[in-house]
Structures are given as structure tokens and as C-alpha cells.
């Protein structure tokens, strides 16, 4: 990780003066104040973390810095000179670079073309492929991807590599400030570590870094200072060392969250709710067996590409399987048909809410009731009274905040959208619920609520399976952890007493053997 290329690094010598400073930044959308009177200083050679719940104003702040939106008031200066209201291009010219949460790369174009998109080497409008490759390779070297062929299509790369390409693209514009917006959401533990190392290296080269993440551990790992926002206002901006885990959460949430994970005083009965025997998801050779009992939460951990998501999808019938049986309460569920799975009492909360869960054009009510329509209809007519009753009951019990159930589900925040999807499966009275990364992109407050719901569901006698790449979550939530490696179950650990190291050891013994194809499968799904 220490093979930086010194000849192109250090666009600025380290100085105590802030590169960027915002004073009194305010932004309102109609009557809603997204940001009120916020100050921010980004200094070279320093990682500034931005912490806050969803809706605290983090993205608004980033958008102001990048010129994506205009602030209502306040000043924005770079190198102590006011730059007014920059357009995105002007912000880039002033040295503000952003690595976005949802990558901004074009998947069907090559790595080289993506890197050089804004300034393709050309002579009289005709591109020069050789020159493009040469410059692209130079840029890739800066992120230790010297062996990556610039002609590769971006869509073929695993997500972690795409992220590095994105960073290379930003670095190519010689930025002085690099903003990382939730860069690790799609990365595995090991890839996250590598990325954090890279960010620290960029900091040491003299870049000013702003780092935004929901993962507090990452902030503690790399943050020099932290700026905390709550409800659009600045809570404090202080050295990272002044906080510990609990005090940081307390300042973000404004109240103390006693325990993130629900108490595990549930009784696990002997009644088997989900029985998987000899199941082989497509492309997996080793059959998988396991059981989930009533009241039990089974965690599934494993590196990215270990087949966790594929296993859940096969159980739910989202993809076909090559053999084995799935039984819910002793009844065999036909493989490869989500409709049968729903009727049998299975529910799947997918990892990618927008693409695989929500019906964005439809209302909150319609999203919550869609899986239960067969039950609440007579002669194919939807019983609207019953539908409203169900939506009221389940969304109400999840403490969803919305003005009306008739507003489009797209108007809700990530955590609330997750609650709508949760209500969808509560409404079907699912017997077994499968959660794939249930708290991805969800803020701390909503996380605790979702954990509580998962715990309550198990306590009511459901069988629960939770897949997560966030190890503290798996260990905190589950009674038992299955660790996957290369498509099969590498081992099982009781959650009580197991450490993250134990899980990682099981997950990565011989981990170097996993094939590239696997990795791509997972990152694309």
C-alpha cells in the first residue's frame, strides 16, 4: 500500500490553513430546512468525517460543496477567497473531487474511456486510442491497478475495483479535496480495509479528505476530526479522539440509544420452521443443509462472493436451484418460484431496495399490501377496508413517519422504505423471514428499530435468517452464525462468545481460491 507515485502527488504542501471553508451555509427545500447555518473547514492532510443520521443534512452539504445545488446563504471559500456559487464544473476546477456512493462510471464503456471521459485525447474530433490507453494506465497506477487493462469494460469489474477506478478518475483531475460519500456500502470487510488504507495514503500526500459513512468503526479508523450534523444543524466539529463509540452515537441521535441490539432472552423452541436439505443454488456444487427453528435468528456471514446472497435467493426461489429441498413447517416449497415461496410463508428483504424491493411509482399503501393481495381479496376484488387496516396496523407498529399512506414510497428515506418492505412481509404473516443486508444505507436510529423488529419477530416464533457483511451486526443479532466460503457453509459458530476474528478465520481460510467469476456474480446481483 505504499507504492505511491511521488512525481504526481502533493498538489499542495501541507498547511494548517483550510483549503475549503464554508460559513453559515443554509439551504431550504420549500418549507423544509435541510441545512441551517453550518460551518465546515477542510484542511490538507486531514480526514474530516461527517456524521449524522439520514436526513441530518449530510448529502445537502456534499451537494453544496460540489456545486450540485445552490445554497440559500452563507459563504464558500477555497484558499480563503470567496468563490461564490460554483457550478459543478467550477467546483471541480477549484479542486473539489467526489467519489460517489452510487458510482458515476458508465458500465458499458471501457475503463480508459471512463477515466478520460471529460477530456478524451483526440485530434480533430477523432480519438487516439493509443494515447488514451497510455494516460489511462498512468492514472490506474496511482491506485495500484497497473495490471488492469484499460480496455476492460467497467461493468465486468467487481465493485471494489470499480471504486478504485472511480478514485483514479477523481485523482486524474488533481483534486485538493476528495469527498468520499459512503464508499464502503458495497464492499467486503477486506476491501474496506484496503480502501481505508488508500484514503489515509491520499491524506498523507496532502489531500484534504471528507469522509461520509454510516459505519462508525470506519470513522474511528481513519478520522482526524469529525463534524456532526443533526436535523440540518451543526452539533459540533471536534477531534475524533474526543469521542468514543457511544458518545458519537449520542451526539448524532441527540438521545442515548441504550443498546443497539435487542436482548436475546428469546426462547428457541424445537419446532423447525425452515429446513434446507441438500440445496444447491445454481452454480454451486456442494449441497447446503441447515435448519432454522422457531424463535431463532440465524446469521450468515462470509466474504463478498461467498454465495450468501445466492443462498438466500435460492431459498426464496428468486433463482432456480439444481437440487435439494426447502421445507417450511414441514411442507416442501417448490424451487425457483417466488410466488409459491410467498404462499408457503417465506419472505425476502432484498439487499437492493430500489431495484429488487420497492415499487417506486406506487404508494406506501400499495407497496405494503402487494404481497398479501391474494389474502385480502374476494373474487379478485381487493377489500380496501381490510387493506387499509393491515397497512395501518403493520406500518403503525413499525412507527413509520409519513403524512399519508397515499404518498409515493419514493418520498420516504432509506430507513422508512425498509420499514415499508418489512411491513409487506409482516402482512403476509410470513413464517420464515430472510433478510439480506437489512440495515444497508440505514441510519443509526432506524437501525436500532429494525434490529428490535427482527428480535420481536423471532420472539413471536418466526424463523429468521440474516445475511450481513457487517460482522458486529451478525454477531449482535444472531443466535447462531453460519459462515460461508466459496458457495458452501464453512462452519457454524454460536453467536455468544464468538468474535469477529473467529468468523473471519472461517470465512477466509483458503479465501484466495475464490474465482473471479464468483466475485462478479455477487457484486452485480
Amino acid at each position, binding site marked *: 500500500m505504499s507504492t505511491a507515485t511521488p512525481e504526481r502527488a502533493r498538489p499542495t504542501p501541507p498547511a494548517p490553513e483550510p483549503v475549503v471553508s464554508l460559513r453559515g451555509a443554509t439551504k431550504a*427545500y420549500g418549507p423544509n430546512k435541510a441545512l441551517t447555518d453550518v460551518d465546515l473547514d477542510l484542511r490538507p492532510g486531514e480526514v474530516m468525517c461527517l456524521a449524522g443520521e439520514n436526513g441530518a443534512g449530510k448529502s445537502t452539504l456534499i451537494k453544496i460543496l460540489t456545486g450540485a445545488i445552490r445554497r440559500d446563504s452563507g459563504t464558500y471559500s477555497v484558499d480563503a477567497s470567496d468563490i461564490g456559487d460554483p457550478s459543478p464544473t467550477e467546483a471541480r476546477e477549484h479542486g473539489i473531487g467526489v467519489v460517489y456512493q452510487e458510482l458515476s462510471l458508465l458500465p458499458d464503456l471501457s475503463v480508459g474511456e471512463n477515466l478520460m471521459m471529460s477530456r478524451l485525447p483526440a485530434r480533430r474530433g477523432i480519438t487516439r486510442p493509443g494515447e488514451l490507453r497510455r494516460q489511462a494506465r498512468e492514472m490506474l497506477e496511482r491506485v495500484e491497478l497497473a495490471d488492469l487493462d484499460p480496455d476492460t469494460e467497467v461493468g465486468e469489474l467487481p465493485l471494489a475495483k470499480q471504486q478504485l477506478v472511480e478514485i483514479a478518475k477523481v485523482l486524474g483531475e488533481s483534486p485538493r479535496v476528495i469527498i468520499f460519500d459512503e464508499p464502503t456500502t458495497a464492499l467486503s470487510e477486506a476491501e474496506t480495509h484496503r480502501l481505508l488504507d488508500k484514503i489515509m495514503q491520499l491524506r498523507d500526500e496532502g489531500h484534504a479528505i471528507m469522509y461520509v459513512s454510516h459505519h462508525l468503526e470506519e470513522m474511528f479508523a481513519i478520522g482526524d476530526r469529525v463534524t456532526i450534523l443533526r436535523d440540518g444543524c451543526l452539533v459540533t466539529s471536534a477531534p475524533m479522539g474526543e469521542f468514543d463509540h457511544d458518545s458519537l452515537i449520542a451526539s448524532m441521535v441527540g438521545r442515548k440509544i441504550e443498546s443497539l441490539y435487542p436482548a436475546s432472552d428469546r426462547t428457541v423452541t424445537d419446532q423447525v420452521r425452515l429446513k434446507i436439505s441438500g440445496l444447491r443454488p445454481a452454480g454451486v456444487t456442494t449441497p447446503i443443509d441447515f435448519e432454522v427453528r422457531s424463535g431463532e435468528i440465524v446469521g450468515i456471514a462470509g466474504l463478498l462472493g461467498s454465495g450468501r446472497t445466492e443462498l438466500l435467493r435460492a431459498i*426464496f426461489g*428468486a433463482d432456480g436451484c439444481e437440487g435439494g429441498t426447502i421445507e417450511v413447517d414441514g411442507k416442501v416449497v417448490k424451487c425457483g418460484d*417466488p*410466488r409459491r*415461496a*410467498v*404462499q408457503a410463508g417465506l419472505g*425476502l428483504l*432484498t439487499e437492493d431496495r430500489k*431495484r*429488487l*424491493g*420497492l*415499487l*417506486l*411509482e*406506487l404508494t406506501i399503501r*400499495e407497496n405494503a399490501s*402487494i*404481497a398479501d*393481495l*391474494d*389474502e*385480502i*381479496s374476494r373474487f*379478485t*376484488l*381487493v377489500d*380496501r*377496508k*381490510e387493506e*387499509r*387496516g*393491515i*397497512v*395501518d*396496523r403493520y*406500518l*403503525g407498529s413499525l412507527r413509520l413517519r*409519513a*403524512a*399519508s*399512506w*397515499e*404518498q*409515493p414510497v*419514493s418520498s420516504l428515506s432509506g430507513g422508512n422504505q425498509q420499514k415499508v418492505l418489512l411491513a*409487506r412481509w*409482516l402482512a*403476509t*404473516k410470513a413464517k420464515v423471514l430472510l433478510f439480506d443486508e437489512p440495515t444497508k444505507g440505514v441510519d443509526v436510529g432506524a437501525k436500532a428499530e429494525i434490529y428490535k423488529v427482527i428480535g420481536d419477530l423471532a420472539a*413471536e416464533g418466526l424463523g429468521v435468517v440474516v445475511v450481513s457483511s457487517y460482522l458486529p451486526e451478525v454477531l449482535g443479532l444472531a443466535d447462531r452464525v453460519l459462515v460461508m466460503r466459496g458457495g458452501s457453509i464453512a462452519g457454524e459458530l454460536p453467536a455468544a462468545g464468538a468474535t469477529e476474528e473467529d468468523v473471519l478465520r472461517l470465512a477466509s481460510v483458503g479465501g484466495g481460491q475464490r474465482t473471479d467469476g464468483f466475485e462478479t456474480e455477487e457484486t452485480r446481483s
Partner: protein
Amino acid sequence: MSVRNNPEPAAAGAGDGAPAVREERVLTFGDVFGRDAGGLIVLLILFGALTLWSEQFLTISNLENLSRQVAIYGIIAVGQLLVILTAGIDLSVGSVLGLAGCVTAELIVHGTGVPVAILGGLGVGAAIGVFNGVLVAHAKLPPFIVTLGMLGIARGAVLVLTSASTVQPLPDSFGKIANGSDPILGLPNLLWMLIVVVVVTAFVLRRTVFGRYIYAVGSNPESARLAGVPVTRVLVAVYAIAGFLAAVGGVLLASRLNAGIPTGGTGYELNAIAACVIGGASLFGAKGGAYGAAAGAIIVGTLQNGGNLKNIDPFYLQIIIGALILIAVAFDQFQGRRSRS
């Protein structure tokens, strides 16, 4: 989890509005017609303007004439709407309309009874729709391509079947279907057909499970599938209904002209799509309603009717209708952008 059949008392008496926060509100036009309100407002304005502008417009005979002109467009527009709601498109409805009309006419000419001949025509339309649907839903071919192919196949088939010549003579009993009026109110039969098709479709879309599934598939087919929606069956059904309604249009056109016209329905698919878009449907799916599509068809028909009454050059009318499509879509985009930000 508590018993399902016991909704909270607060929700029990709720009307169409929002149960989450009960608030005082007046009943608006949008509450009644929901997703279709825009097109109906334009239609009402258009009717008002034409009534003031032309004395002949608001007369019984002109309105009967108008309803005969728009009924067939309206019926196939409703079929088209169902496909568009699933984010698909059916370019074959015009050709299917021609084929179904000529099949019916040929059957009658060759001595089949009128009811059986009509069933034959409708069956051909539905079968073609099922075929389209299977290619879209199971073979996963793009709807545009599937129905573009079918546009050519069906039109070719009808030309072969009829040797490109008009099929006649047809008995008066067949012609009465589309040209007659009901004995009580004296409204044209065609108008009644349109009303039945629109009202039934609107009801299906709003109140039935199938209707809800159509919107879900149009919103995001993969999300819908993972929520247990039978996506392929919904798609096949939607194309089958579009084919069937196109055939209904074909039978009615043959009856109205009392002849099977091999080129009948040419270009109707574009009129149907235009009607849906003017009526507020989005080609990206999940947005629009049956009243809107019917309103869109009637708007186009009314503009043509008004143009005839005032002797406006029909070429200018084409320009006006084209502009109307652009305005409708731009308005929709503008609205969408505002509600998103």
C-alpha cells in the same frame, strides 16, 4: 401478530383518502378520477370552448356522430393502455383490428352465422395477443420488436386472406351492431360499447388484484416478482386483452362500414398510443388510467370533429394533435420533476 380480520376502528369508516393522518379536506376532482384527472380536465375545457365557438357542436346529431367516430379509437386505446401500464407497447393493434374485421367478414360471406363469425374474429385477436404476450413474457423479447413484427405479419395475413379486396356484401343485421342505437335512450350502440369497456377496465385497474399487479409489474417487474406477483401471467393477460380489444374494434369497424376493409386500422396503433399519452399515461409504466386513455381518445376525436365543423384544414389538425402530445408529455415531466425535488 394479531388477527387479520380486525382492522383498527379508526380505519374502518375511512373513505378514499389517507388513513394515516385524518384531516379535513374537500373532495377534489382528482379524488374522484385519481390518476386520470389531467386528461378529463383538458377534455372539459375543450368541450366548453367548442360549444362557445360553434353552434353545431353541442347538438344531438353532432355528438352522436362524434361518439361513433371516437368509440373504436377509444376501445383500442384502452387495450393499449393496459400494455403501456406494464411499461410495454403494442404496435400490432391496428393490424390486428384489420385482420379481425376481415376474418369476421369473410366468415359471414362464406355462410357462417353472424354471432359465430364475430367470435371467430375476436378469437383471432385474442390469440395474436396471447402470442405477443408469450414472446414478451416468456421469451423476454422487447415488446416494441415483438409487436412491430406482428404489425407486419397481421397486415400481411389480412391482405393474403382477402386478396387485398374489400369483403362484401354483409347482411344488414351485422351492420346494425355498430350503426344502431339503443331503443330506450337512443344513444348509439358504439357509445355504449365504449362506455362498457372503459368502465369495466377502470374498475379492474382500481379494484382488482389483477389491476394492482399491472401497476406493480410496470413499476418494477423484478421487485414485483420477488413480492410474489405472477409477472409472466400478468404480461400475457395484458397483451391478450389488448389483442382482444383490437379485435372488438375490428368487428365494430367492419360492422360500421358493413364491409371488411383489408387496410382498415392502418395507423390506429399510433392514435391509440397518442390517446394514452395525452390521457396521462407514462410510457415508462405504472402511470395512467382507463378514464384518462378514453379522455385522450375523445380529445383527439373532438379536435377532429371541431375542425370539421369550422372547416379547418385537416393538415393543420395533424400539427395540433402532434403538438398536444408534446405538451402532455412535457407537462408530465415537469410535474414529475417538481414532485421529486
